[in-house]
């Protein structure tokens, strides 16, 4: 296993280089350039100023040169300077990382704690009232657009009841846990709900399969306590599809919460990405996307490691 992990990590480097070329090509192929923001104000803009701006940013150079310049700096640990803010991309990402991780972390934890039991009990009591209710709710959650749910919560808890603030991570000048919880409550709820819906469905379905397997039936007939059977055998065996889905969702930590972050004015990386895209801020885009890709690659490796733990028969060479 250790050798396998080392091999996979070694593979990451050419893979990430390949990914970076593809990503660079795609974001550059999108029409429009960084001067778009200036034009978007609707005011007169001197065409000479636009040319000067493009020259200053170096986007007037051939694509391969731009890529090589970016890649060269990247090898030296320099992610470049954002077009919009003229600040190092690394600083901008680092600044938003804690808030992003906090929101996503709480949402993932919440979703995990709800989805797994929900899926397991639904499977154990297939076609019971509990099963139908949780199925129904899961699908309401899926059919309900994130923006709609978020704005509705705001309307209820901020406008009507005035319990919770609409936007931000904390009240200025207040540094208490309660205040932070008040700010994160709605975005975390909105975000975790979609994950709960998906994850619990996967959990339920793979539990159903495992529960019907011979060895579970055998264990059951041997008179082992039902609870033990489930925990010891079924859950572990049913875990593989769920692990696949959860690791994939966690890998999208930087892009999975765009709408939630926008609606709740949360300073997340997803929102920064959207803004960078509309401003065609290529260095910032590359920075965020490459971090995202690294997460994807790393979490898929993690998933493979977890597979081996859940089912020791799986071996990678």
């Amino acid at each position, binding site marked *: 296993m250790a050798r396998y992990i080392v091999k996979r990590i070694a*593979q990451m480097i050419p*893979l990430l280089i*390949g*990914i970076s070329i*593809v*990503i660079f090509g*795609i*974001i550059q*192929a*999108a*029409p429009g350039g960084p001067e778009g923001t200036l034009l978007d104000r609707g005011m007169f803009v001197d065409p000479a100023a636009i040319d000067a701006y493009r020259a200053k940013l170096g986007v007037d150079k051939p694509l391969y040169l731009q890529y090589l310049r970016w890649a060269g700096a990247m090898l030296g640990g320099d992610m470049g300077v954002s077009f919009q803010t003229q600040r190092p991309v690394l600083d901008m990402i680092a600044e938003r990382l804690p808030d992003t991780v906090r929101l996503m972390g709480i949402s993932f934890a919440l979703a995990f704690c709800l989805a797994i039991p929900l899926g397991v009990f639904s499977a154990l009591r297939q076609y019971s009232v509990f099963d139908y209710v949780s*199925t*129904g709710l899961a*699908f*309401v959650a*899926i*059919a*309900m*657009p994130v*923006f*709609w749910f978020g*704005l*509705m919560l705001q*309307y209820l808890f901020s*406008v009507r009841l005035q319990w919770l603030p609409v936007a931000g991570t904390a009240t200025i000048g207040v540094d208490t846990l309660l205040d932070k919880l008040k700010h994160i409550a709605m975005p975390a709820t909105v975000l975790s709900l979609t994950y709960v*819906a*998906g994850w619990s*469905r*996967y959990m339920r*379905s*793979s539990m*159903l*399969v495992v529960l*019907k397997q011979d060895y579970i039936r055998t264990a059951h007939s041997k008179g082992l306590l039902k609870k033990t059977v489930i925990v010891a055998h079924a859950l572990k065996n049913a875990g*593989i*599809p769920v*692990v*696949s*889905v959860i*690791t*994939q969702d966690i*890998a999208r930590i930087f*892009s999975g919460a765009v709408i939630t972050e926008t609606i709740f004015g949360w300073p997340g990386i997803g929102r920064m*990405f*959207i803004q960078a*895209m509309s401003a065609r801020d290529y260095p910032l*885009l590359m920075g965020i*996307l490459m971090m*995202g*890709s690294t997460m*994807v*690659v790393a979490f*898929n490796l993690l*998933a493979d490691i977890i*597979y081996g733990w*859940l*089912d020791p*028969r*799986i071996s990678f*060479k």
Partner: protein
Amino acid sequence: MAAPIMEPQTAEVEGITAAQRSNARIAWDKFRKHKLAVASTCLLLAIAALCFLAPLIAPYKFDAIDLRNIRRPPSARHVFGTDGLGRDLFTRLLYGGRISVTIGLSAALLGSMLGTLIGSAAGYYGRGVDNLLMRLTDLAYSIPTLPLIIVISAYAGSSIASLVAIIGFLSWMTTARVVRGSILSVKENEYVVAARALGFGDLPIILRHILPNIGNSIIIGTTLGVGNAIILESSLSFLGMGVNPPTPTWGNMLMDSQATMATEPWLTFFPGMAILMTVLCVNFIGDGLQDALDPTL
């Protein structure tokens, strides 16, 4: 089990066709027993029929703008009310369903099929094939949706077929990972190992011994995919890639209702319910299929 070893080729072919015929009958009987699944099938067919017969049923034209009747609540003249441009919401819901149901079902199926194909090949063959296909998945997962859509919308027109293709190609990776992960485990089961030892071909083993075990996950992936595809279509149109106005889809009707959902809730409620009904139907049909394909029942 002596015969297959001596004459693997013919026995296999005959065995499968005969078995398939009877399996299909058994499966259908099992499916029929799942009342909710049958009811859902009927409802989904009814929704689809209503939508595709929209030109005959709809009381108005879907793009008949009436600025003097903007955002009117449901009434006798407009059973579901009117939208921000005074268009009849019921009419638009029917027309919108044609696109949304088509895109939802076909894109989800396409995504699942692609994912299943890639995931099972990777999981079953393992080693080099697995590594190659999974690194491809990593790459596909790393491609940012938003810029990709902007690129495609700039250089290619948007038709229903291209939307289905794009959504399908954007959503196969999770299924692929799930299928591959499960197969890695399932293929170590004794009966699979035995079947291989007996010289069965790869395809029959995958079809008969492996897919039934992971069918559940694929079905879940597909049902979740239907809802996602319908919503994703609306985000695409938000980026200029989706269906252009004034043609309605459930997704863009929902998007348009954003600004007024607190004050004129029917604008959000009806398209939302339409999506919910469709997704729920697909889910229960999926449940029925799971039962139908379950060999232990």
